[in-house]
């Protein structure tokens, strides 16, 4: 494939469609909005193809790993068992909302999902333990703030002293919110610049 077809055409498409979508977002002319909505529907279709392509690529990779007895090749075998098993179960059931696919999902997938999710509770406590170690004046400051916020949310805090909720809410609504908004605004600015430099063709690494 020539360099023009491989690089230039996708770049032109990206620039034209990218600028068009940005323009329509800010200047919503009804006829153009319809076109823009259609384009955004195409994104869903293209993403579907990307996932399909990824699944094929993954299958080839896992097959090669099994054939060559590569790293953790037994996991690759499991990949095929689960992939084929799920497809067969889906086809036998005749859809995702029908038996026995639903039973399999409710009996196996949902409880496993919930069990893994519940481990986060343990991890949050472990993370708190790490934070509560006084290593520097910054961490001391953090601990002080955390204790106040903890007492703000716990009933015992207000019962002990009515000032805890006031200080705690101030900490959450002024310094914490201000800092996170500041970081958020800067991040969004960086994203705008990143997006525009790709759309305008200054950064071609995505091609």
């Amino acid at each position, binding site marked *: 494939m020539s360099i023009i077809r491989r690089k230039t055409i996708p770049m032109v498409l990206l620039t034209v469609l990218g600028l068009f979508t*940005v323009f329509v*977002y*800010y*200047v*919503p*002319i009804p006829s153009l909005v319809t076109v823009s909505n259609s384009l955004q529907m195409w*994104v869903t279709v293209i*993403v579907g193809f*990307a*996932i399909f*392509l*990824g*699944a094929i*690529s*993954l299958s080839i*990779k896992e097959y090669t790993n099994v054939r060559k007895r590569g*790293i*953790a090749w037994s*996991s690759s075998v499991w*990949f095929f068992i689960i992939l084929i098993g799920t497809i067969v179960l889906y086809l036998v059931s005749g859809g995702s909302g029908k038996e026995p696919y639903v039973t399999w999902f409710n009996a196996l997938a949902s409880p*496993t*999902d919930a069990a*893994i*999710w519940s*481990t*986060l509770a343990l*991890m*949050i406590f*472990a*993370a*708190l333990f*790490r*934070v509560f170690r006084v290593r520097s004046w910054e961490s001391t400051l953090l601990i002080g703030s955390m204790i106040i916020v903890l007492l703000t949310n716990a009933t015992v805090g207000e019962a002990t002293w009515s000032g805890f909720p006031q200080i705690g809410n101030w900490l959450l609504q002024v310094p914490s919110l201000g800092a*996170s908004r500041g*970081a*958020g*605004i*800067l*991040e969004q*600015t*960086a*994203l*705008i*610049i*990143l*997006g*525009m*430099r790709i759309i*305008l063709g*200054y*950064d071609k*690494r*995505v091609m």
Partner: protein
Amino acid sequence: MIKQGQTFNLLLVIFATVVAIYFITTIKKTGKRPYIRPIPAVQALPELVGRAAEMGRPIHFAGGQGGLSSTWSSGIASIMNSLLVYGEIVRLAAPTNTRVIYTTGDTANLPVAEDIGLAAAVKAGHPEYKQDLRFISSNPRSYMSGIMGIVAREKVASQFSLLGGEETLTAVYIAAQVGAMQIGGTTFIPNASWYVTGSDYFLIGEECVALSAIFGEDPSMTGCIMGEDIVKIFYIILISLSAIAITAGNKAIINFLTM
């Protein structure tokens, strides 16, 4: 004509773009890479790889459960940048044949990561370097359990992650459990606290986005960072003026911002 309340936003997008393009073109003309504040997390990348090489244990690169096929702009930017860091880590790991386990929950990430890793290995002079790319699941909980297993079984020496979802804490916690050195970052600010608590070095918000300019071979990309700095100065002036005006009872700036 312009959507209600979006006039200032549109002007801001135009301003940020024009400023960034000005610096990109200026640097392209002069060819001089501008000074960029050293980011400790970036400087520690050789240490991350070196530790794994010395210990003879692998590096875990948590690619996240989301990816290039998602429609979350911040997430895609994060993945794009994390893939560039993956390339950099492979470039550093290839000479010592240190294993880098790349895990992801998005099938679309795998071929891209494979290409970037191969290009990095070739650049390092080791095209024979064997990559270890693993797809786990697009389901966050499955991804979480997958990386818990891999990190614990392989007892990884170090971990790099740019995550934003619910898998963040799991990745940070399990790596801390096995005593791995960690560099991490997120564009999702509420999750930054997990990195602060568990990582040795961390990147917050715009630092994650700046990685693509730092690791790029084209020095003109650093013009974006200079452009961001100019926009930051504009923000500081605007916020200060707004605060003064509001305190004085003048709503002219607020009306302009919401016009």
